[in-house]
């Protein structure tokens, strides 16, 4: 049965053999390089996962504090005061930039919260916590997006390594082996032929 994955045996010449060996060396070099790249990306993934986990823990703790603070402020100041104060709160300025890790572009989020207002004591603490919550939340989103991008890139690199390791390199090796076997066979044939010719000549000379 013929499939598209089947390949033709190249012409049995020494030049073809040399070319195949060169291709094999290149493929092996590339496989090692891609493996190294994958290791570095995995390292980055591990570091990002560590960071994301720390940030999530920090965010949960902060939110707990903020909820308690908000309930207290609501109880002491009342809804109207809180709403009036909220109107004066400035919106954070968010800048999204990029950083590169092994050619993979990952997001870098910078947040700038300017707030020159003065608030009553409870609200001042609450406002400080709000800034922290926004910063942590944005950093967490940055880390989780980076995790997603890194995981995609790692799986792509892994596919390439597997393609080299399980398809291209074994195919080249088997082609080289079959060519070498063909050359050995040709050599044997040649030797047998020369022996036979030698014998025939000996018989002829002996007969004369």
């Amino acid at each position, binding site marked *: 049965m013929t499939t*598209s*994955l089947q*390949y*033709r045996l*190249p012409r049995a010449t020494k030049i073809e053999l040399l070319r*195949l060996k060169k*291709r094999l060396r*290149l*493929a092996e*070099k*590339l496989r090692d*390089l*891609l493996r*190294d*790249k994958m*290791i*570095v990306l995995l*390292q*980055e993934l*591990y*570091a*990002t996962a*560590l*960071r994301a986990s*720390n940030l999530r823990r920090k965010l949960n703790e902060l939110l707990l504090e903020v909820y308690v603070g908000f309930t207290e402020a609501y109880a002491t100041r009342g809804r109207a005061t809180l709403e009036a104060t909220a109107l004066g709160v400035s919106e954070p300025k968010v*800048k999204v*930039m*990029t*950083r*590169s*890790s*092994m*050619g*993979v*572009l*990952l997001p*870098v989020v*910078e947040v700038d919260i300017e707030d020159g207002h003065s608030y009553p004591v409870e609200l001042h603490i609450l406002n400080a916590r709000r800034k922290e919550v926004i910063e942590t939340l944005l950093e967490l989103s940055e880390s989780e997006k980076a995790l997603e991008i890194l995981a995609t890139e790692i799986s792509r690199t892994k596919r*390439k390594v597997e*393609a*080299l390791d399980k398809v*291209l390199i074994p*195919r080249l090796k088997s*082609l080289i082996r079959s060519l070498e076997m063909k050359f050995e066979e040709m050599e044997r044939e040649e030797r047998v032929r020369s022996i036979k010719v030698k014998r025939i000549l000996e018989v002829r000379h002996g007969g004369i």
Partner: protein
Amino acid sequence: MSRQDDIIEKLFKSELRYVNKHLPVARKSLDELLREPEPCVLLRDGSRHCIRKRELKKLAELLNPEDRKRLLLPIIIQAGRGDRETRYLVENVLEASVVEMLLGQNLGASERGFVVLYPLQVAELLSSYPTLFQITIASSQEQIENASLERSSEL
């Protein structure tokens, strides 16, 4: 070889060409980056690597004004295969001592002029200061092997 194999090979050759294209065209000093509104460096593939201001400020606190002018960012960490696992090398003395300061460990940077890092140390650095560093695959594996051998013999 079939035509399909030729295409695969061409793809892989281009991969080989672009493997270290994420390195900066020219690195900038810490002092220079601190003055920029958006501290970024241009990379060889045309993209930009931006460094978080908070990380720059943290680094500036650790260094004296002279070193702030000399330290070039991002710090390049070279990855290569050691005897059993991947090892990471920081070559420049100043950069190596900065790594020591950030990790809070004495790795012998001032005596040897470089530091060899284990994967866990790199993970620690990258998780705390993700934008300050860039990892590259070492062109010469020999140097990494020699450095890691030197370190393991000391331990």
